């Protein structure tokens, strides 16, 4: 369709050889994620429908409003294919609302709110309070190297408890967990996509590449 602005995001130049990754584009800052992924050489597409999900080897769930993403994912038949893809081991990275969508259990949800699940964690929505409490700070994240990560929290969630299958990656000074991983799943309370911080996306793309490689060997 000529008006589909997603086409202009697409892949960067000559990126067709890069991994095929999608950004869930139901609502939120999906273009910022698509921009970062394209800059890193990925072939990026926006995902709003099951057939678009089937065409990618990894997915980013952006920041935004988790209640809206949940409703639209269910209304347009995307929730079950997403759960199946996560269960099959597809690499998925969620920021903020995306972390909420990946959590097995959420607190302070609205009535009837569902998540996709996959991360063995309990996540509290909007854990810091109103927008007046939104903040930016530096985090030490050893898994990403010595240089601190500049993290922006916008009405963000926190991981209240980490189950045995998940691993915390980052904590605030007060000890609250704000980044976790489990297998091919990665979730952060904050938004690297709006600060020019590329290391989380590189970390995610490494997973996509290595899974594609192992699948092509075994396939």
């Amino acid at each position: 369709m000529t008006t589909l602005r997603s086409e202009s995001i697409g892949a960067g130049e000559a990126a067709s050889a890069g991994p095929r990754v999608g950004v869930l584009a139901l609502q939120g800052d999906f273009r910022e994620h698509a921009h970062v992924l394209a800059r890193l050489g990925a072939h990026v597409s926006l995902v709003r429908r099951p057939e678009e999900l089937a065409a990618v080897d990894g997915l980013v769930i952006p920041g935004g409003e988790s209640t809206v993403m949940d409703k639209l994912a269910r209304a347009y038949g995307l929730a079950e294919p997403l759960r199946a893809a996560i269960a099959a081991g597809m690499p998925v990275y969620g920021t903020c609302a995306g972390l909420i969508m990946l959590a097995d259990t959420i607190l302070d949800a609205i009535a009837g709110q569902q998540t996709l699940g996959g991360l063995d964690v309990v996540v509290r929505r909007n854990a810091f309070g109103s927008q007046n409490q939104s903040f930016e700070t530096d985090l030490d994240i050893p898994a990403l190297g010595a240089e601190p990560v500049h993290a922006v929290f916008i009405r963000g969630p926190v991981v209240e408890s980490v189950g045995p299958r998940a691993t915390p990656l980052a904590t605030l000074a007060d000890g609250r967990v704000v980044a976790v991983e489990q297998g091919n799943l990665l979730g952060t309370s904050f938004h690297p996509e709006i600060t020019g911080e590329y290391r989380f996306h590189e970390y995610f793309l490494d997973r996509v590449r290595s899974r594609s490689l192992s699948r092509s060997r075994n396939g």
Partner: protein
Amino acid sequence: MSTAQTGSSRVKRGLAEMLKGGVIMDVVTPEQARIAEDAGAVAVMALERVPADIRAQGGVARMSDPDLIEAIIAEVSIPVMAKARIGHFVEAQVLQALDVDYIDESEVLSPADYVNHIDKWQFNTPFVCGATNLGEALRRINEGAAMIRSKGEAGTGDVSEATKHIRKITGEINQLKSMTRDEIYVAAKELQAPYELVLEVAETGKLPVVLFTAGGVATPADAAMMMQLGADGVFVGSGIFKSGNPEQRAAAIVKATTFYDDPSVIADVSRGLGEAMVGINVGDLAAPHRLAERGW
């Protein structure tokens, strides 16, 4: 490790980034706020009267009762915005103290100052402001607005002014993109906007903050048209709760905003919505009743 910083430009503009692709709905009671959240609103605007009623009842329109705003904040988990009069920095101070998530310095209320807008840099809470053209948008950003909405003509259900304003803003951005450096000095003078902001828009091809559309959106197709014209998201004021079936219309507008480029989805959600708000043709409004002309 640095200490946490609140109220930075990045944090203020960041919330608007997270609202993109979404619908912000005017609500006047906690019950309406609940309906809006359940229908998929990304945020609600808490106010005492929707613009259509402000228009019908006349008189001076002011900031809403703090009790009402707090009751709406208590009812929903999504962000809550509230309106202050243009230039009324004390109403804005009150809204910040009430812990609203965004302050709308709005032409829908009666202006409190016909010369100055609020110095929005003085606040921790972010502001959204209306604009009818690029120069007005950049003047608001220069004053500290962290989000812009094209004004349209609130409370009419007539989308033509919303169309005019979003086309004007995106058209002026496109003109800047094709200009050479030496032409941008004159463009800044003509736009009556700071040169640095004008240059930034010319180089990046977009506003430095998120751009929503407002004022007259009443149907799913209206919302989708605004998105196709380049809006990042949509405010719907009177269009939902002045219609025959608010729950269904709200959910339909949310879906049409996400699938704005898919006419089959828009057709599907537009079926059987019942009566849209009655509406007023903007052409029938005498000039003093045109809200978009407030603000400068």
